[in-house]
Structure formats: C-alpha cells, structure tokens
C-alpha cells in the first residue's frame, strides 16, 4: 500500500475525508471559520457527481441536508456558532426523524458574534443541548488535521449506523492550520451505509424497531412509501398526541440508540496515565498544549497524565470514573468559563476537580497550564 502524504488545513481535511466517506450532498451558508468547507465542497462535489447548494441561511442548510439524506444521500453542512444556533430547530428534526446527517462545526469565540476568527470551546454544551427536548447526538473532537480526516470518516459511519446527527467539533485554529497528514487508503477504512428495509413495501413501517433499536431506513423513490412527522410518532411515522406509553417508549428508543451502544461509539485517548497521580482532562487541539505541559511537568517529577475524550458526546464517563479513583486531583483545561468541568465532576467521585480556563480567543499556552497545575499540587 502506498503512503500518500499531503499538507492540508483542518477544513480541507474535513472536506476531503467527507467525500472519501461517501458525502454526495452539501448545503451550507458561508461563515467564518468554516467557509472553506463550503468552498471546497462546491468545487469537489460535482467532480464525483455530488451536489453542492448554497442556501439562504443556516436553517435552510440544515433542512436541505435532511431532505437530501431522506432521498438517500450522505449529507453534511458546515458552520460555526451563530450558524449552529440557527440550525438547532432542524437539527431536532434530524434527531426525531432519525435522518443521518453530519455537521462540521468550527468553534469560534462567542457569545453572539464573538470573535469570528479566533478559536474557543464555548459551545460544548450547545452541541449537546442546543436542540430542545431530550434527543440523541454524537460529537467528536479531533486534535489534529490528521485526526480531522479519520474522525470525519467515522462521523459519517456513526451517522449511518445509528441514524443520529453527528457533529465534528473543531475550532477556528484547527480549521485553518496546516499539517502534513497521511491520507488513508480506501482499503484501510470501512464506509458504512444505512441499513435498508428488506420487507415488501406494503409491510414497511419506517419506525418499527427490528430489535436493534435502529429501524431500517428507505430512501424516497425506492418504492417504499413512508411518512415522518417531527411530532411524537408511532412506528408508521404518524403523529400520536395522547399516548403516554408510546411517548415515553419513543424517546427512550431515540436516546437509547447512543446510550446502548457506548462501547462502539465512545473513543478517547489516555496519555501517560499509567502511573499518574494527577489527570488533566482536555479536548480538541487544546489537548496538545496540555500534553506539552504534561511533558514539562514530568521532567520536574510531577506524575501527571491526560485524558482526552475524542467523543465529547457521549462523554466517556465510565472510563474517566475508573481513572479518577486513584488520582489526587483532576484538572479540566478548556477555553471557556467551565463547561466540560461540570461533566467531569459527575465522573470524578470524591476526587477534587480543578478548573484551568482561559477564555480570550487564544490557545492556552503549555506554560500557563503548567503554572496552574503547579499552583494546585
């Protein structure tokens, strides 16, 4: 097998990988720092027979990819904070109607318009709970351009497998920085396609659980006629408004698609944790600063390691709980006022949790992290 290396930005890697994963429809609206994904999609998609659409806004972009996915497309949009806020309404429909879609999300400094060109991690909670009501969602946070590539492929596969929206969380810096990456050969990864119905069309019930919790999905035009409402619906997709049992069962099945498959979905990295007395939890590009700080601390004899959730949602609680048990202290390093911190505290048991935050549009430097660490031990 030949090794192909290329220098790419995070946004380039994301687009390249999406097409490699089978993306054939992209709809979006320009927004810094995610715009290049739209630009590249508009150029590259028609070359493979795919379609690009620039919609009138982000509501329409999310709606269009859900429509395309219902017609059988692997579809993606790309955005940042203000655009992601606008997408929530239709993202809820994707979760409710179980239409697989992927969102490439380059976080920028918020709130509101914030600073469009600077990185932040202020949307960790919005990614999980931006949509009203209980719903399933998966979010992955790569830490390098190379990982943007592999996690984008995995994002499409997770969306297709579980019929759940998947968000690829990067930030303004990872989106725009260039790294030399190895482009995996197509023989090295699997491209998952959604499970299709096999029953005769007249017997098809689009939301009937086949025992896996994930119903097979037909595409419009393939002979199966199906209807789906964004209201609580029965297995035929039709609204049911006064059935407490069905309402509860529907929501439990939706949420269960992620909760019951944590082993397959969750991923994380552990760095120098074996003998660690202290543990720093961090996600995304920032985790590389954290690793630097850990390396420096180790030279000074401080036994510290890193736990890096790659799936931020579902958050790998159980593994963190195990790791927390013999630690003196946990640290959460993040570029916000404290979001991951709350999730970490839920897993930490009796181990104290200390925040290391900086929320000014700048990556937190290793020196800053090291200093904060040393002050607390």
């Amino acid at each position, binding site marked *: 097998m030949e090794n192909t290396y290329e220098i790419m930005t995070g946004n380039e890697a994301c687009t390249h990988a999406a097409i490699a994963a089978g993306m054939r429809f992209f709809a979006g609206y320009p927004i810094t720092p995610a715009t290049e994904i739209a630009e590249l999609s508009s150029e590259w998609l*028609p070359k493979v027979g795919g379609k690009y659409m620039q919609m009138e806004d982000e509501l329409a972009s999310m709606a269009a990819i859900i429509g395309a996915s219902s*017609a059988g497309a692997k579809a993606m949009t790309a955005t940042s904070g203000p655009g992601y806020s606008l997408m929530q309404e239709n993202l809820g429909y994707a979760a409710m109607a179980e239409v697989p879609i992927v969102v490439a999300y380059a976080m920028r400094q918020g709130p509101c318009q914030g600073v469009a060109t600077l990185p932040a991690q202020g949307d960790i909670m919005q990614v999980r709970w931006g949509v009203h009501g209980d719903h399933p969602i998966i979010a992955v946070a790569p830490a390098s351009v190379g990982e943007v590539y592999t996690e984008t492929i995995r994002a499409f596969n997770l969306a297709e497998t579980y019929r759940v929206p998947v968000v690829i969380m990067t930030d303004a810096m990872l989106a725009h920085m260039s790294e030399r990456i190895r482009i995996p050969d197509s023989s090295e990864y699997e491209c998952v396609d959604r499970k299709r119905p096999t029953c005769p069309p007249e017997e098809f019930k689009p939301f009937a659980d086949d025992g896996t919790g994930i119903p097979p999905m037909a595409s419009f*035009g393939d002979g199966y006629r199906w209807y789906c409402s964004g209201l609580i619906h029965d297995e035929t997709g039709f609204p049911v408004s006064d059935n407490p049992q069905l309402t509860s069962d529907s929501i439990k099945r939706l949420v269960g698609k992620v909760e019951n498959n944590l082993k397959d979905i969750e991923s994380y990295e552990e760095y120098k944790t074996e003998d660690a007395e202290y543990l720093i939890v961090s996600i995304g590009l920032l985790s590389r600063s954290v690793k630097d700080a850990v390396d420096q601390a180790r030279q000074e004899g401080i036994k510290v390691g890193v736990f890096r959730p790659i799936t931020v949602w579902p958050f790998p609680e159980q593994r963190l709980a195990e790791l927390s048990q013999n630690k003196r202290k946990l640290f959460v390093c993040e570029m916000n006022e404290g979001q991951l911190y709350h999730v970490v505290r839920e897993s930490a048991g009796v181990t104290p949790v200390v925040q290391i935050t900086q929320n000014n549009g700048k990556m937190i430097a290793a020196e800053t992290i090291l200093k904060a660490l040393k002050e607390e031990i």
Partner: protein
Amino acid sequence: MSEKQHVFDTFLRQDKLPHIWCPGCGNGIVINALIRAIEKTEIDPDNVVIVSGIGCSSRANGYMNFCALHTNHGRALPYATGVKMFNPKLKVIVVTGDGDCTSIGGNHFIHACRRNIDITTVVFNNNNYGMTGGQFSPTTPLGSKTKTSVYGSIDTPFDICSLAAAAGATYVARSTVYHVNMLINQIAEGINHQGFSVVEAVCDCPTLYGRLNKKGAAPDMLLGFKENAVMKAKADTMTEEELKGKIVIGNFAKRVDRKEYTAQYDSIIESAKGGH
C-alpha cells in the same frame, strides 16, 4: 376485469380518516384537488414526495399515500429543495399555509422562487393561523378581526401570487376552493411545469377567520369566493378601488425563459467532470 380504482382509494390513506380539520374546512377540498391533479398527470406515485411544515395545512400530506416529510414551521421548502436536488427524478410537492409559507417561511419561499427548482408549492391560504386558534397572518386583509387583531388588522397583507412572480417563480396561479376544477387544472399544470410553480388555493376557515369576521358558515364562505372572484385578465383592466375585496384568480406567471435549477446543476457536474 379490473375496474379503475377511485382516486380516494388509490391516493388517500383511508385508515387515517376522518381528518383532524373542522367541519367545512377548505383544506380537505385542496387535498381532493391535489390527488386528482396527481392522477391527471399520471406521474409514478412511488416518485411523489410531499413535504410540509407546520400548521393546519401541513397535516395534509399525512392523509395522502405518498412519501412525505412533516417538518418544522416554515421550513418545508428547504427540506423539499434537498430532496429534489439530490434526486431530480422525484416529483416534489410542498403543501403549506399562508403563515407557514409567507411569514416564518417567507425567506425560504422567495429564494425557492429565485432558484427555479422544479418543486410545486400548493399554498392553502385561509387568511389566518388556524392551528393556534385564529391569529392574523401575512395574508389577513386590512381591518379583519382575528384573535390578535381584535380591533382590526393594520398589517398590510402580501399578495402571494404577485410576491412569487416578482421573486422569479416561473408558474404562478391562484384559484379558490369554490373553483375546484380550475384548482385541479392549475395544480396539474404546476406539476407538469419544469421549474418552480406556486398554486395558491384560497381556502375557507369557517371556525376561526370566518366566524370572527361574520362570513357565515362554510357554504357561505365558498359562495363569497364565487361572488368576489375576478379572472386575472379582467382584473388587469380594473382599478385598485374596483379590486377592493376581490380575489383575482387565474395565471400570474407562465414562463419558459429560465432554466430549471437541477438541470443547470447537471451541466455543472458535466463541466466539473470534464476537467477545467
């Protein structure tokens, strides 16, 4: 010998009837016209996708036996756009209301008109928000009483057909639920038209708009549509004063000068694949 099935048996989901709408609601008449138009065009029912948003009219696709998405308020058009764009062989129809289409979905509406993508949009215009109990919509006539304009509406209404035509829709027509045969023909023409088509069906809402404005029961409201309807060609010769309270019916646009959107994109694919 197989007899031709009645259109109600072929295209309605009989098990979902009776529908949720009030007695005399014009929405059922529009569905009645829509399924006959689909029958008339002889398109493959497996290729029909009906997309709706939220509101009374948006429940319509639930009663018809085609593929359908019942989506979010105002968003039917961008969902439909994604469906059509990815698979242009599908016949995509949007069923929407005056509020869904021209208020919360107004921006999507004008952009769909502008793009000229081959989608047929049937607007059920009953001049108010029915699902939420009768508030004024962007098509409520000036001075009309609704639950949120108890002193009379001061918001100038949109003329949906003029709006659509100005925004670039290439087939635009209006009829009423009194003029059912015209409505069937317009929807069928819209479906056959290669481009973005809009058919406005003026509908009665006897329970809310009708009652609040003393328009009588459903049959009275339909007779009102009959009395106040003016054909487009005639209306073009009338003054604004003479047109007060009238409903202009007929064709507002029928253009063949603009290329359909998915066909244009096919050319893009061709040139992108061809290299430079």
